[in-house]
């Protein structure tokens, strides 16, 4: 690891034989030398190269927001992990990848399982179903695709390991030292253990799927998440934060719900939005009306229909990977003339899922756009198709948008809470292990019940391949312990790259 170390400007630099110098001299071609520039061979160069490639369209469209994404990724190892799903996919599939490990179940199990695509602890959150019950599920399917199930298991276990390491470092750095810090290896191993146990349970009894409910929340962390969701939802938190009452009419709020901040990027600073909403112009409002109308046909329950659009705002600051993407909050009139049942919907731009390099092309994948992909796979992978009754999609040509409800009942887990709660004793190490285990179980249930690209459900095939789960636990843990430190190092590399090349990594 280390900063980019450019080789001296010459044709023949770096390791390996240099036929060019001899050839060039032999031919007397001085122009050969003059045309050459410095070349890089390190992982930092690869990281910079791929980060720019993956965000090139966003850097062209809005370099400032994309620079904000890089700055946000630099703030912690876990934020870095959230912004580098593409790098993870390259590393586990590409020749020369730092995470290219043996796949233990592709030969014996299915390789076209419906995947979350970017499974990690902060993509787990609460939902209020159509019957008002709260549950916990994966909540971000922007990267959903088809592939080997181990891909999701590895990513989720890695996410827990990075979260654990980050939390441990934070606790160690705090004045009181670690209060109850879990073993990160054990946390990583808990994910595949939970996954395998869920598959075995479902194989024995298809009705035994893990469904998290308020009444029987498994562990203190999910219990706290659900309690917060119930409180915030009942209090109408989202409506309160993003709208205001103007007499007896509700209108969108414009301003900073939470103030933006400046993040140090080397010697410079980069503005990073936390939670800001801005007004939209009339053409955008008309556009959003069209998108909402178009999305009606894609909702699972067509009886749920938005009322009159009361207004909309453009949201800045949400997400890490999706930070530069367009995201609007649209306020629509509720069923009654009262303001308490008004609904806030989020219309979010969708992009392609990160490529799984070399993975079998899903030529029979049952979607023809990112809207059907994200929404379709969300319904396949979540516990209930009505986890979000407002879920739908719309598109404008090749650009797709997902529509969902924005409500206090939908509450995501935040890794930053771990250090605080462990430090004050609210949670203990076993709670983290329980959370990792139940996350593995939710992932196992999601994979098992979702249809593969070929159309059949994957549960039986995965269960048969995984068996008692010993090999899955061993391989996943081995992978995480080998590759995890690379992620931490890559985060440090990003800091150095931003310092050396600026907020856009030198793009333009």
């Amino acid at each position, binding site marked *: 690891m280390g900063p980019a170390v450019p080789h001296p400007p010459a*044709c023949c630099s*770096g*390791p*390996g*034989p240099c*036929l*060019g110098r001899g*050839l*060039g001299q032999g*031919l007397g*071609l001085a*122009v*050969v030398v003059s*045309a*050459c*520039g*410095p*070349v*890089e*061979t*390190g992982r*930092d*160069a*690869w990281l*910079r*190269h*791929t980060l*720019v490639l993956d965000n090139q369209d966003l850097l062209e469209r809005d370099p400032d927001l994309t620079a904000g994404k890089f700055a946000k990724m630099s703030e912690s190892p876990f934020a870095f992990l959230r912004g580098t799903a593409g790098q993870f996919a390259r590393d586990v*599939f*590409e*020749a*020369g*990848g730092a995470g*290219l*490990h*043996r*796949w*233990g179940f*592709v*030969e014996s199990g299915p*390789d076209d399982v419906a995947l979350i695509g970017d499974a990690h602890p902060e993509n787990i959150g609460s939902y209020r179903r159509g019957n008002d019950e709260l549950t916990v599920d994966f909540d971000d399917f922007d990267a959903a*695709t088809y592939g*080997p199930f181990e891909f999701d298991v590895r990513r989720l276990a890695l996410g827990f390991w990075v979260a654990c390491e980050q939390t441990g470092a934070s606790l160690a750095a705090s004045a009181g030292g670690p209060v109850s810090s879990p073993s990160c290896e054990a946390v990583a191993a808990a994910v595949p253990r939970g996954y395998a146990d869920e598959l075995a349970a479902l194989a024995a009894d298809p009705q035994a799927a893990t469904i998290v409910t308020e009444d029987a929340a498994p562990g203190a962390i999910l219990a706290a998440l659900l309690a917060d969701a119930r409180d915030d939802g009942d209090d109408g938190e989202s409506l309160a934060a993003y709208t205001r009452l103007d007499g007896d009419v509700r209108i969108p709020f414009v301003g900073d719900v939470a103030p933006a901040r400046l993040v140090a990027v080397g010697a410079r600073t980069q503005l990073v939005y936390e939670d800001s909403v801005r007004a939209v112009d009339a053409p955008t409002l008309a556009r959003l009306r069209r998108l909402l109308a178009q999305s009606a046909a894609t909702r699972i329950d067509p009886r749920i229909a938005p009322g009159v659009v009361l207004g909309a705002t453009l949201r800045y600051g949400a997400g890490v990977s999706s930070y530069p993407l367009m995201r609007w909050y649209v306020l629509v009139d509720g069923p009654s003339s009262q303001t308490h049942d008004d609904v806030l919907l989020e219309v979010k731009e969708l*992009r*392609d*899922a990160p*490529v*799984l*390099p*070399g*993975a*079998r092309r899903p*030529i029979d994948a049952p*979607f*023809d*756009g*990112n809207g059907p*992909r994200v929404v379709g796979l969300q319904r396949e992978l979540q516990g209930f198709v009505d986890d979000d009754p407002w879920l739908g999609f719309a598109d404008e040509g*090749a*650009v797709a948008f997902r529509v969902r409800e924005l409500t206090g009942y939908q509450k995501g887990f935040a890794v930053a809470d771990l250090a605080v709660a462990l430090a004050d004793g609210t949670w203990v190490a076993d709670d983290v292990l329980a959370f990792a285990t139940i996350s593995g179980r939710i992932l196992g249930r999601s994979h098992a019940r979702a249809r593969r690209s070929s159309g059949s459900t994957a549960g039986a095939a995965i269960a048969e391949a995984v068996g008692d789960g010993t090999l899955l636990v061993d391989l996943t843990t081995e992978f995480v312990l080998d590759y995890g430190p690379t992620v931490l190092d890559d985060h440090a590399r990003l800091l150095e790259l931003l310092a050396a090349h600026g907020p856009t990594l030198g793009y333009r």
Partner: protein
Amino acid sequence: MIGVAMLLVLGLAAAPPVDTPSPRDAAAVTSGESPPSEPPSSEPPSGDPPSSESPSSESPSSESPSSESRPDAPPLGKSTPAEPRSTATRRWSASGPWVPNAWPTQQSCALDPVDAPWCLLIRADVFTGARIGTIGGARQSEFRLDRAEAATGLLWKPATRFETGGIVALESIRSAGPQSVTGIDGDSLIVRLLEAYGHAAAHFGPIDVGLRAGLVPERWIEQVEKGYDTRGFDALASDRVRMFDRADIGASLVASGWDSRVDLDLEIVNGEGRAQRERNRGKNTTAIVTVRPVLRAHPRGPIVLALHGGFRDGSVGIASIADRRGAAAVSFASPWVYGGVEYVHALGFGGRGDVRANTLGVWASGRILPRWLGVMAKYDRVVLDLEAPDSTIHVVGCAAFSDVFEHIDRNRRRVRVYAGYQFEGYGQGAAPLPGATTAQDAHRFLLQLELRGLARIGPKEQRP
């Protein structure tokens, strides 16, 4: 599928021959075109002399007396009207017939500064077919369009020892990237620039010098493909795994001596290929030496043994990641068989500067029944990370092929059908799924159609 192909081949075998080009006609001459890969001649290996031109011939040169026989229509290149026919024929044979693409030694059209100073070229290539087989045990079948290209260019000869012109070539690609659904109207086939460049050639005694500038073809692929006759079935190993991109923006300079017995190529390009603009300060510099120790004009066609060596120093992407190549190849072309070996070593590959990779390609093709039946075999050995144990990928292919019409190099005309099989096998450590070899191994049967043609429109060219 193969049965259908064989029926097609057998059916065609019953048809009478259309035309057989003279040795001169076999001198396909393309100037500034994308890498062609036609054989110099399709004449029977028997002792039969070349047949006379058929009225149905589509070749202007095959329909008319050879240009060498006309004092006002000298052969291309350095031949002059004053040369006796035998000398001109020898020179033509020595300088042209052995390769379809003889630039800068020769141009595609019959040109002279007074009577025929210009020529318009129109070219089309289509490779399409059907594949059926298994990948990782899962059955796959599809119709494919592997290549659809169209090109046009203008040639101009303002002086005896100088030609210039421009080429624009278009190709089709899928509009969405790998695994992407963000394409144009789904994942439609769209058209993009393959090549777009100006070129000039000057002749000084035995030396021919050529310069191209713009979106220029990769010279390594162009040179080695002169000894590869079955591009319609599969690409060369270096092209297949993208050791080299087919075209890039920059310039290439060629010095060719003694009728191309020695070619020195120097290429300076951005290094980002066709898909990206320049993203770093460095330029890719490639130097290639081609020596042809055997260059013989046999009555049935040329016999050429070529030795190629080259090195590319370059980088890719905003971070100037090392992307170097060392390459060597031997190719052999004759009226009866083609064969060759190509090896490319990568210092930096796939955006990873520290990766060492290599690829080895071996090919052979020959005609059993002239025109009607030929066979080919090809083997590619690819290691995309030399540090990963047991990560070799083997690609083995073989096919029978038949030319529906007699091939004419000068027109680049070919309608060829391949019926073949290809196996792709992965080592235990090979990406993308190490440890899961059988999940990656692929078996496929191919029925492939190769369609190519070149029309020349100019004062000394007859109808295309």
